């Protein structure tokens, strides 16, 4: 197997969904069953992705395979030097695993949608949009440079916009699409500036070259401060796309889209693209940037988790849960737990898309009822949905034997190790507290939806188990939420091939001084060594701290998760405490959470109002100053034209007319000589002859 096969495979996987998109879009109206073609394409893409991942992980496990070509060659520019922009594909272990996750979930969502979207009038177009989304996401996964990353970044934004506003007849859906697009734009501006700073410094977009330059100590503007700024700017893209605080407001609204879309785009893949971006640029992030990332991650984990407890829309709860889990991943990256961030990305993709598809199954059966207060008792009616949903809830809550337990525990151990090494205990505190909240809101959701008595009898009677094409993806995803795929030991993820062989912390290229102390690659100074006589480096110190943190954090997180679960059962299942009374007693806090910390209102009162105000000022400026200038110019021109017209009429026409008059006058005079009579001519000739004679007589 040669490396070029991998690149070719990656290219085929990249362009297959695009073909599906074009065919489905072009022939969607003419051919009724064209969506089957799109489904066929995505199954093919998944199969190829599995082949690709197999080849990559078995034959080239420690190698990054790249293929590139020069897209634009600008030659030697003055001031800049030689610039050529390359496009290319990069297949490393992370990309290979990620593409399997993306195509697998995309495939399952395609299959699920066959039943879910049945009867929709834009059925084929829906599948076309799924196709272009898969195409763009694959582009993000395989890119080997920042430019292509940015292009596909915007393409996923576009497909997200199209799919959120898929039912655009509904105003809220159309608005949600616009909101998602605009909020994302805020982050993308930062990302773009970051990319431009890197391009300005290194004259290339390619990751490898940038990393190499930075490892040589060549950093933007020769200042570690600017390296940090660049990292934060690029991370802004992730803030937007991964719906991190403070740009998280678009994700809950994005739930207006069809539920399978929420599963694919707004839970599993696209929102994880932000995390994927940080994973890609991780080697050049300075300590300052990482600390900023960790703070954003911690806030994004904490705030939505508190909101999720009070929400009553099943999809809104899941949306806030998604933000919170993405916050976990970002936090993990911020504290340096690189491989666990990616691990959590994978496991979360499976169990969160399962939760969304499960909720889709419920919503489908409840005739588009999304309010969990009107559900209840669905356990008996929909056993497959219930069991798979329960497995996913256990996974996200971090209960042992599930995938989520492994990855979340890794992240918590990472924050714990960070705390023990730096003395900063804010991150572990947030991490563990959110673990409690996660179990609480997830089981509140499960109990209210599936347990107890049905609260809406009529809708309950109509509900029954979903058809095979909807149940099958649920079962597949539920099995993927079990630990066995990742490690043989349900309590230690590092024994599995995934973390021990495939995903490893990358080499850090930032200057030593710009890193976290524990990420430095030089040896620890004597005296601070934990054990005398042993030569260890800072990064080894971090690994050791992670290992030490593993057991205590596991016990603590297990305790917190089960207490969260217990609280949920106490309140909602056994009704020992009354949730409504508690809400009544803590009304200000409850309302604050119910209204999502008033983020939307805050933004509406500040940024949106400011924008509107600015628009008004600009409109006034336009109407008065600009229009004034234009109208003034028009008036001046008109006056000048009048003057010029006068001049034309009087002077120019006068001159012309008088010339005409003069010639007419002269004509009147001279026509008298032109009698036509020969005799007159003769007289004139003789007369002239006489004059000539007198004139020339002297000669």
């Amino acid at each position: 197997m040669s490396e070029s096969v991998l690149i070719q495979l990656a290219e085929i996987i990249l362009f297959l969904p695009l073909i599906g998109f074009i065919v489905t879009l072009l022939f969607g109206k003419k051919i009724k069953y064209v969506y089957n073609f799109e489904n066929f394409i995505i199954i093919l893409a998944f199969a190829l992705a599995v082949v690709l991942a197999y080849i990559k992980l078995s034959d080239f496990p420690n190698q990054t395979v790249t293929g590139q070509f020069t897209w634009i060659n600008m030659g030697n520019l003055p001031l800049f030097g030689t610039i050529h922009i390359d496009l290319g594909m990069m297949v490393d272990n992370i990309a290979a695993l990620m593409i399997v996750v993306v195509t697998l979930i995309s495939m399952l969502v395609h299959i699920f949608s066959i039943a879910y979207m049945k009867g929709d009038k834009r059925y084929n177009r829906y599948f076309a949009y799924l196709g272009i989304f898969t195409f763009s996401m694959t582009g993000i996964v395989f890119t080997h440079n920042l430019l292509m990353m940015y292009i596909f970044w915007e393409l996923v934004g576009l497909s997200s916009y199209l799919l959120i506003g898929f039912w655009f007849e509904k105003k809220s859906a159309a608005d949600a699409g616009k909101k998602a697009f605009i909020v994302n734009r805020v982050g993308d501006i930062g990302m773009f500036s970051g990319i431009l700073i890197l391009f300005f410094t290194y004259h290339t977009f390619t990751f490898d070259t940038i990393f190499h330059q930075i490892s040589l100590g060549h950093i933007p503007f020769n200042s570690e401060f600017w390296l940090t700024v660049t990292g934060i700017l690029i991370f802004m893209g992730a803030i937007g796309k991964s719906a991190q605080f403070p740009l998280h407001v678009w994700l809950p609204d994005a739930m207006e889209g069809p539920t399978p879309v929420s599963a694919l785009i707004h839970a599993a893949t696209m929102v994880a693209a932000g995390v994927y971006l940080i994973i890609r640029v991780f080697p050049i992030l300075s300590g300052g940037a990482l600390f900023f990332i960790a703070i954003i991650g911690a806030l994004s984990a904490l705030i939505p988790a508190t909101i999720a407890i009070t929400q009553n829309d099943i999809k809104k709860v899941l949306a806030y849960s998604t933000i919170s889990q993405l916050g976990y991943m970002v936090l993990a990256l911020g504290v340096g737990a690189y491989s666990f961030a990616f691990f959590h990305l994978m496991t979360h993709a499976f169990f969160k898309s399962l939760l969304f598809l499960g909720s889709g199954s419920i919503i489908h059966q409840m005739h588009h009822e999304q309010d969990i207060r009107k559900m209840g008792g669905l356990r008996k009616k929909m056993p497959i949905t219930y069991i798979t949903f329960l497995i996913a809830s256990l996974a996200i809550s971090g209960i042992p034997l599930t995938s989520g337990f492994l990855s979340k525990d890794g992240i918590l151990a990472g924050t714990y190790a960070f705390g023990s090494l730096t003395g900063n205990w804010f991150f572990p505190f947030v991490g563990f507290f959110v673990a409690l909240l996660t179990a609480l809101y997830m089981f509140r959701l499960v109990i209210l939806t599936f347990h107890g008595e049905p609260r809406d009898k009529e809708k309950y009677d109509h509900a029954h188990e979903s058809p095979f094409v909807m149940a099958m993806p649920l079962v597949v995803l539920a099995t993927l939420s079990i630990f066995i795929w990742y490690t043989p030991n349900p309590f230690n993820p590092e024994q599995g091939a995934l973390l021990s062989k495939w995903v490893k912390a990358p080499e850090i290229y930032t200057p030593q001084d710009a890193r976290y102390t524990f990420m430095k690659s030089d040896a620890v100074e004597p005296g601070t060594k934990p054990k005398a006589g042993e030569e260890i480096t800072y990064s080894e110190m971090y690994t050791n701290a992670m290992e030490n943190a593993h057991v205590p954090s596991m016990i603590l997180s297990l305790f917190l998760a089960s207490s969260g679960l217990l609280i949920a059962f106490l309140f909602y299942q056994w009704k020992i405490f009354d949730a409504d009374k508690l809400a009544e007693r803590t009304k200000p806090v409850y309302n604050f959470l119910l209204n999502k910390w008033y983020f939307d209102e805050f933004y509406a009162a500040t940024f949106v109002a400011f924008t509107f105000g600015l628009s008004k000022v600009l409109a006034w400026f336009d109407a008065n100053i600009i229009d004034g200038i234009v109208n003034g110019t028009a008036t001046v021109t008109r006056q000048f034209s009048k003057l010029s017209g006068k001049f034309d009429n009087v002077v120019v026409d006068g001159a012309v007319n008088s010339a005409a008059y003069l010639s007419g006058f002269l004509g009147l005079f001279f026509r008298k000589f032109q009698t036509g009579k020969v005799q007159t001519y003769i007289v004139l000739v003789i007369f002239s002859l006489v004059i000539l004679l007198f004139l020339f007589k002297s000669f």
Partner: protein
Amino acid sequence: MAHIGLNHFLFVSLVLFSLGIFGIVTRKNAVMVLMGIELILNSANINFIAFAKFGNFGLQGQMMALFVIILAAAEAAIALAIVLNIYKTFSTVNVDEIDTLKD
């Protein structure tokens, strides 16, 4: 009676020439205009003959006068033909009324 010299001849020729011009310019009838032309030709003849008599040219002057007479005959023939054509075209030989040259 004074001796008749060259100047007398030239004076007669001048009178004839002037009468010819006067005839050409003032007469309305085209035939009369032709007659004016004949007068001019004859005044020229007088000049030729006078210069031949008083000069030292031999018979060249007389020869030229004979030549002019022949030329005048030919001219009269052609001119009369033209007058006929004028009459055909304009139904008049009155040169006052023929002013199509103006157009």
